[in-house]
């Protein structure tokens, strides 16, 4: 089967400014996303994870290589059917929850009751049906992030990009949001591309996990988790969970040390 998203030789170099040298931030990266899979990306801070996401989203063009989405090249414009959830709160404080979720549908030519039905479904999926008329300021951070997720789901995207969407939330909320994300992933059948700095989150959620190097970020490992499609956060109890997370950390540790400017220490004698 042909990949839904295909990155070939993708890289990004930010041009020099009067005060800075040119910065090779990312790549080259080759990566194919399978339709319907859950792909997570982990990497040391500053490795270009978010830049990678913005390139796939069409928010910023790559300076080398190309990205294809469903056979079409993405050239600096966000294609329909790709949804993005950002780390920062992107809810619109002047609109209530329903209006927030319906925001992107205004442009569509759907009849009104179809639109209303979609909004209701999305709200139910993220568990916010009881808050349809609340304003974002009345909600917690986790609930606001769910508003943003619902606003993305309502557009029925075939690819959902998430840029550390739970980064600002506490650990328990993050685990529960992870469960909900898995539910939505199964319910929508969309492909999910998740950027996270939490290794356990990546292991718990993804079918495949890409590990990125320090800047300029390249893919240095891709780990298959082989989890069943029906799964939830209780997967952390499995023995493979620890093994996969450990493998991720083993690869990432050296790269993370580079980014904080330490020399890589000699590994202890292998057992």
């Amino acid at each position, binding site marked *: 089967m042909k990949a839904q998203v295909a990155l070939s030789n993708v890289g990004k170099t930010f041009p020099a400014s009067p005060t800075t040298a040119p910065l090779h931030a990312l790549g080259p990266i080759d990566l194919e996303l399978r339709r319907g899979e859950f792909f997570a990306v982990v990497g040391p801070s500053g490795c270009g994870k978010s830049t990678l996401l913005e390139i796939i989203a069409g928010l910023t063009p790559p300076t080398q290589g190309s990205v294809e989405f469903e056979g079409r090249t993405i050239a600096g414009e966000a294609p329909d059917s790709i949804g993005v959830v950002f780390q920062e709160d992107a809810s619109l404080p002047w609109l209530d929850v329903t209006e927030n979720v319906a*925001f992107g549908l205004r442009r569509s030519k759907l009849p009104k009751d179809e639109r209303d039905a979609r909004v209701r479904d999305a709200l139910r999926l993220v568990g916010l049906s009881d808050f349809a008329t609340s304003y974002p300021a009345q909600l917690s951070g986790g609930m606001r992030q769910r508003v943003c997720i619902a606003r993305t789901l309502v557009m029925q995207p075939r690819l959902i990009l998430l840029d550390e969407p739970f980064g600002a939330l506490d650990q328990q909320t993050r685990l529960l949001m992870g469960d909900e994300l898995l539910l939505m992933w199964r319910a929508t059948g969309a492909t999910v591309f998740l950027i996270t700095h939490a290794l356990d989150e990546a292991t718990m959620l993804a079918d495949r996990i890409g590990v990125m190097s320090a800047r300029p970020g390249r893919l240095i490992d891709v780990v298959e988790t082989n989890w069943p499609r029906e799964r939830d956060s209780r997967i952390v109890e499995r023995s493979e969970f620890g093994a996969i997370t450990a493998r991720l950390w083993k690869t990432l540790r050296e790269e993370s040390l580079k980014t904080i400017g330490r020399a890589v220490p000699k590994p202890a004698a292998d057992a």
Partner: protein
Amino acid sequence: MKRLLAYRLAVIAGAIALLEIFCLTGVIDKITMQPPHLIARDLYRLLASGKMNGAIWKTLTNTLLALVLAIGVGVVAAALLHRLRALRDTLDPLFATYYAVPVFAFYPFFIVVFGLGDLPQILIAFMLGVVAMIVNTLNGLDRVPPVLLKTGRIMRLTPIDTALRLTLPAAGPYILTGVKLAVAYAFIGIIGSEFILSRGGIGYEINFAYNNFDNATMYPLIVLILLASIAINTVLTRWEKTLLARRGAR
């Protein structure tokens, strides 16, 4: 909160009472000022007689016109300037020093060009208010979180939709600050220019009454202006409060 309101009312009532005593005991003589209770009576008579209706109507409609113009032109100009970086950088010093220039200094020029009609008065009031609108709207647009702009691009909004549905609403509280200033400037512009380049309106009537030692008309009109601007400001502030409460302290 209730107690604070009571204190505030007490201060106002005390000031009026003091004025009343000064007027009645002759500390302030009758030719200078009427005691407040007579001003209130005269204001009632003036409004009931209807002879000021034309002047009041003219002043209010001209103020509203200047205000609407200042808001409309100000918001549109700010939205455009926000996208035209070079033009904005060029004009920034002008905005910064704008209120150091007394617009009224140009009134002879306005009379020569536009005559004594309503137009020069509306123009002066508009010129006073529009820059406050531009500066505050730009200020608000600068503070729109980048993540909202990215969201707009993901939703593939057109530039006009982005402005109308995303950036201007996001800048709402700042725009409202501009509107409150523009209301004050519009009143100042209209009443002030009615004093010097008009043959009608509340400002003109106050000036006319002043020249004729007609305290029974002059003071009630001054009070009327006070009441009108306080009323408008109160309504706006209330509205602002409910909007801000809804948006929370973010």
